[in-house]
């Protein structure tokens, strides 16, 4: 099937704009770097929550593991800054994926309430463990090494790094969802008992999906630890009540179970947050809590879900069979 050229042009325009941000809006590099991070958060959450129907509240675990692993390697391996960062993030990603594989057969065998609360516990347990463990700085957290380049180079570098992460994650997931793997995930979401009754090795698929999600989150963790300049066990790395729940919220806001929904949700959420943050003076976190409740209660279908109900034909759903053709 040939995509309409309009799409190509739109994608090219967005890409060009994204690449030019450090030139066009140098003051906002850090905020916009976080935008790409948020997009990765929402996309990786949706791989399980939206596509597979496993609503995890603990995916932040993998983000934190990647972050800690990266900073530890940077601290202890005695490598140069960039070598340390890249090797560290890579190792963090692999460690996160390995952890997902290890936990997978146990945790992903849980369903419904049990999975949701179990993963919630998992994320918080990790934060508590890290706060007690002196090797990783305990409750005080850790500080990654200083960026070696000139002033301002740090922001630009991390902007492009975050952009690259999102630019890899999105096409990868797009490819994944078009494969049989994606279909099996959807089957598990629609009716896991049926999938089992058809003999599908659901645990294998679920675990692999979690590993993929964990891998990208781990990779992102390394970058974000360095971008923010500090690693705190409860407030940054395993921040269940901020990053952890934002992942879920952004995916829902954009539209669960779609490729672009999480991207849209992350963009809307992050930009709104950054725009209004300063006006809320001390009530920011309260407002965020309220926002979660309001979105979940009143707008659970999300932006794309709403659009799909409004204009079904635009979303490739054939309404009558005459259209189906031979």
């Amino acid at each position: 099937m040939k995509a309409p050229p309009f799409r190509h042009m739109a994608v090219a325009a967005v890409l060009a704009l994204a690449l030019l941000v450090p030139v066009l809006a140098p003051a906002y590099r850090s905020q916009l770097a976080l935008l790409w991070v948020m997009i990765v958060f929402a996309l990786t959450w949706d791989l399980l929550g939206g596509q597979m129907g496993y609503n995890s509240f603990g995916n932040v675990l993998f983000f934190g593991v990647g972050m800690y692993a990266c900073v530890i390697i940077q601290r202890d391996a005695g490598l140069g800054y960039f070598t340390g960062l890249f090797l560290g993030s890579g190792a963090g990603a692999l460690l996160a994926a390995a952890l997902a594989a290890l936990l997978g057969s146990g945790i992903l065998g849980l369903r419904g309430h049990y999975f949701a609360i179990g993963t919630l516990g998992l994320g918080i347990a990790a934060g508590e463990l890290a706060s007690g463990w002196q090797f990783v700085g305990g409750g005080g957290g850790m500080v990654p090494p200083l960026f070696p380049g000139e002033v301002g180079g740090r922001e630009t570098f991390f902007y492009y790094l975050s952009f690259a992460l999102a630019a890899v994650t999105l096409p990868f997931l797009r490819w994944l969802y078009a494969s049989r793997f994606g279909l099996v995930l959807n089957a598990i979401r629609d009716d896991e008992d049926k999938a089992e009754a058809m003999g599908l090795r659901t645990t294998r698929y679920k675990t692999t999906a979690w590993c993929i999600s964990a891998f990208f989150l781990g990779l992102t963790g390394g970058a974000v630890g360095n971008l923010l300049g500090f690693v705190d066990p409860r407030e940054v790395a395993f921040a269940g009540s901020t990053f952890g729940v934002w992942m879920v919220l952004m995916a829902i806001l954009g539209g669960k179970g779609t490729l672009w929904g999480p991207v849209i949700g992350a963009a809307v959420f992050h930009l709104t947050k950054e725009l209004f943050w300063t006006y809320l003076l001390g009530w920011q976190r309260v407002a965020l809590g309220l926002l979660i409740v309001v979105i979940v209660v009143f707008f659970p279908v999300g932006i794309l879900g709403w659009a799909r109900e409004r204009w079904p034909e635009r979303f490739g759903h054939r309404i009558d069979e005459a259209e189906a053709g031979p």
Partner: protein
Amino acid sequence: MGNLRLLFESPVLLVQLLLDGILIGAIFALAAYGMALVWGVMGLINVAQGELVMLGGYAAFYLYRAGIHPLFAVPVAAALLFAAGWLLYRAVIFRVVDKDLFISILATFGLSILLQQLANTLFGADVRTAESGFGTLFLFGGAVTVSRIKLVAFAAALLTGAFLMQFLRRSRMGQAIRATAQNPRAARVMGIDTDRVHAWTFGLNAAICGASGALVAMTWIVHPYLGLPYTVRSFMIVIIAGLGNVAAVLAAALGLGVAENFAGFILGAEYQAAFVFALLVAILVWRRFWLARERRYLR
């Protein structure tokens, strides 16, 4: 691990830890019983359970500051939280009761974050406590110490639980609640207003959490972020004990209290919270494999 050796060297420590665990366990049982009630009647897992406990704690603390003895604060906190629970139900909960479970979990999780942050903004992040001034009891020639308030709190927790059970058994609303838990559709057919039942159920749950929070404020401390461990403890107790069994809830809660105390002592207090959450994961995973062993599943 040095503490482990200490435990073997002076067995009287065992008594101390056991006693502390049992006394705190009764307070856990209250919140867990409330969670079981809401779960059974409304089919809802309330992730904001611990925040209700936290609010009860602050109610007791402010009453104490106003010069009221914290023990009298227990019924007042329960009454206040009943109202708060009712309001929460009318504002948010009733909209998600019949929605799919992910929505209800996420909505109550959002509520939990909201209440945490409200408490943090309004009451401040400081750690507070409501002094009872009851002093300490020395047993075994001073080898085991028990602050009297813990004993009082234990008794008060059992009393509160008994009171709630009597209410459920005797009052008309209590009977309607139990009928709804048994079979919601039949209850509706019989003319029971399930919406009202749900509002009462959630209110009662909040009240019992409030009482439990007041006891926590007296025996321990309150701060805005203490909620989640209570939610997780309640959840753990309920999945071990099942929904309809009060004695099992109490037993599981006491067991958890003891286990936590031992873990806190052996691993160090900084790992006690980690232990609670890790234990939750371990129990869930263990149950999953245990059931799957004979073709059964945890749903």
